[in-house]
């Protein structure tokens, strides 16, 4: 039990936020150490301090028994600390090998780069990680999972001692996660210490030797895996029990009032011949592994894909959504999968992010925006959805993922939609906020909204859906009702059927 990293009374203050308060614990050499906590609990902040991106306000760190000050990323790398961030940081226009050696290219004098050697070494690095991604492949042609492996390969420098993985599986399929875990186990056997951040607690219970918990920037304790149950872990993280957090949805409505009928919807290469009905007061879950066409289906419904055939009927009338603005006029709303890229406006404050879609309802003929109205609307949703913020004029980027998502939900509720399309609504959102978000969703359903819920998290699909559609390779392969909505059935249809 030799500690490799010791945090001593680490405190980090941001303007208005105490990100970390007096955090002390140690990571043992050669273990897989999980770091868990809700979003905004301070996990990433702590890792960024370790990785040299931030410096702590007060407190000290020891690395390999020696007190250290890590001023920048390069210092961390030189000490043998590698971080794979939640948001992948690869250059899509470069090859795998070029990415792996970015910033530490192998040179052969006169500033010339030795591509051959870099390719050879990349290939062996890939083999060490059990994959055969060709070093000459461009990163943009890789799947997210493959990109993650490249990212890991890049972090594993010759003197790697500690590898930090910040939510590596949030974008991965089950199978891809499995192979990542194998890689982690192998690295552990080679003596690398791994710090693993994840929201997927089941994974942690399978994988990690010890787990440390942060809540609201405060350290809650470290447990050996055998000493703690999943239930207890959730309780410490959220202060709530899992059953409170994600209980079953009610399914109290008769699903016999068709609102939206999709007929023979196809898009070349994405999905084909989709037929289904969405009822009033319904949460319709759509499940499938990555690449099954779930997201593409939502995009097509919302007018983000114009290369489609087939048609839609809303309330018995044929409609076409050729653009999102047409879709909005027809009563559709969509929370997109990629919050950062397609969801938030980084230059806007919370207020502006909420009102950006309502436009015509709050402006007069000349286009003047009525600020009293918009303020009322955003204040209303702030209270109704319980968005945690300093005030409405805070920049949205300073909010946690869950609260950002609530802002985006508010944006769409403000358009008074009839049909709400949500895609990976709780990606990167912690358990507590997840529960709050789904509570909102259920209330919307009870208020008469029809919701299509696309998710790669089975537990969400099972607990929230009134009915489940399963997609595989661009086709609808099953419709599940009532008792049929269970893990085994859904996975069976999603993978083989």
């Amino acid at each position, binding site marked *: 039990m030799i500690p490799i990293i010791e945090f001593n009374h680490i405190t980090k203050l941001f303007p208005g936020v105490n990100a970390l308060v007096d955090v002390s614990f140690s990571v043992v050499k050669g273990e897989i150490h999980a770091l868990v906590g809700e979003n905004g609990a301070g996990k990433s902040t702590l890792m960024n301090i370790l990785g040299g991106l931030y410096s702590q306000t007060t407190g000290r760190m020891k690395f390999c028994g020696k007190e250290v000050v890590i001023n920048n990323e390069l210092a961390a790398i030189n000490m043998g600390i590698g971080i794979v961030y939640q948001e992948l940081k690869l250059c899509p226009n470069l090859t795998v090998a070029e990415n792996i050696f970015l910033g530490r290219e192998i040179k052969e004098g006169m500033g010339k780069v030795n591509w051959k050697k870099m390719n050879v070494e990349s290939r062996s690095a890939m083999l060490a990680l059990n994959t055969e991604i060709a070093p000459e492949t461009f990163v943009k042609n890789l799947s997210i999972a493959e990109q993650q492996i490249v990212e890991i390969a890049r972090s594993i420098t010759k003197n790697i001692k500690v590898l930090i993985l910040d939510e590596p599986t949030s974008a991965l399929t089950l199978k891809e996660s499995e192979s990542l875990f194998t890689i982690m186990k192998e690295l552990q056997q080679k003596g690398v210490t791994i710090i693993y951040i994840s929201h997927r607690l089941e994974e942690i219970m399978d994988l990690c030797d010890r787990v440390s918990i942060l809540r609201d920037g405060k350290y809650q304790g470290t447990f050996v895996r055998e000493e703690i149950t999943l239930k207890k872990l959730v309780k410490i993280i959220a202060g709530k029990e899992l059953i409170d957090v994600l209980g079953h949805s009610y399914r109290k409505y008769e699903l016999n009032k068709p609102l939206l009928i999709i007929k023979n919807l196809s898009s070349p290469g994405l999905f084909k011949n989709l037929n289904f009905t969405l009822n009033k007061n319904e949460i319709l879950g759509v499940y499938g592994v990555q690449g099954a066409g779930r997201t593409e289906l939502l995009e097509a419904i919302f007018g983000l894909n114009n290369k489609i055939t087939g048609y839609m009927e809303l309330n018995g009338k044929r409609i076409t959504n050729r653009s999102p603005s047409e879709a909005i006029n027809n009563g559709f709303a969509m929370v997109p999968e990629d919050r950062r890229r397609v969801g938030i406006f980084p230059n*806007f404050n919370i207020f502006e992010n909420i009102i950006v879609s309502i436009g015509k309802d709050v402006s007069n003929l000349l286009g003047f925006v009525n600020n009293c109205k918009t303020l009322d609307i955003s204040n209303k949703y702030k209270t109704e959805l319980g968005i945690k913020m300093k005030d409405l004029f805070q920049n949205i980027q300073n909010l946690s993922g869950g609260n950002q998502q609530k802002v985006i939900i508010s944006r769409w509720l403000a358009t008074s939609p009839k049909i709400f399309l949500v895609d990976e609504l709780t990606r990167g959102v912690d358990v507590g906020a997840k529960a709050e978000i789904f509570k909102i969703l259920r209330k919307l359903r009870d208020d008469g909204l029809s919701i299509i819920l696309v998710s790669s998290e089975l537990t969400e699909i099972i607990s929230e859906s009134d009915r489940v559609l399963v997609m595989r390779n661009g086709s609808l392969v099953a419709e599940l009702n009532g008792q049929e909505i269970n893990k085994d059935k859904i996975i069976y249809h999603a993978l083989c059927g």
Partner: protein
Amino acid sequence: MVKSFKVLIKIGNSTREIGVFAALVLLVIFFSITSPYFLKVNNLLNIIRQISLLGIISMGMTMVIVSGEIDLSVGAVYGAAAIVCGMIITNGGPIWLGIVSALLTGFFFGALNGVLSTYGRIPALIVTLGMMNIARGSVLVLSGARVISLSSRTVSAEGLDSFLFLGQGKIFQIPIISIIFILTVIIANIIYSKTLLGFRMRAVGGNKSAARAAGINQKFIKIAAFSLTGLLCAIGGILNLSSLANVQGTTGSGLELDVISAVIIGGTSLNGGEGTILGTFIGVLIMGVLKNGIILLGVSPFLQMLIIGIVIIAAVAIDMWSRSKSE
């Protein structure tokens, strides 16, 4: 509550301008100390007069840049509009027709820039670079590269004096073109900060994909910004013709760089999404004060270019550094 929110909006939006404004104040103090002529009313009016046309176009440019685009064709469109107006008037056309045709010319080039860079999916940098040459080339062909001058000998239409008064006249000592400039600033500020159009320009410039998914027709917004800029170029061109009483094919060359400089000094981000009309207004003033002050100090005009270059880089650098610190 609501009141305090409004105050916050103001503060939140004006932190950038405070910095730019401080720079302007420092410049004014510096030139007041170093040159006895600087603070004279006549000189200040002269500065205002000199920056008016540049300023009018900068208002449009701010909107284009905030929408995430750029317009290199403003100088050429400005010249083209002036030539069109001048040729119509000198060929016996009525003055109103000259003005309307010039406005249409500006609007046409602006809208074309917008359509090609949105529906045509050609980067605005390329479209407007091309349009700069197209506008410049077509007026050179049209005018045969001659100087078109307005006088009682060349213009038969009535109202030449009132047309010239527009560019040369003063009301209470204040040049009319400057009054038009100030009006443009006010109207632009209303459009930019009070209307949906202005809000959506910032949305589109801040995150194009999110704007599309939020149901905003980003093509329309961008075309509007470009068209407005074209229109403002035409207004500038007409006023230029009126104040000089002549125009030639090369009028306005290089103007685009001054306009973009003023906008950027004013704190507008070239990445789009951030910037204000007030900031640009101050940026325009800084350009005017600098140019004027340097001349008053008797510094060579070559050195003047050098100093303006330094100011542009410094303005952006300070902005970037202060922002990365606050992050």
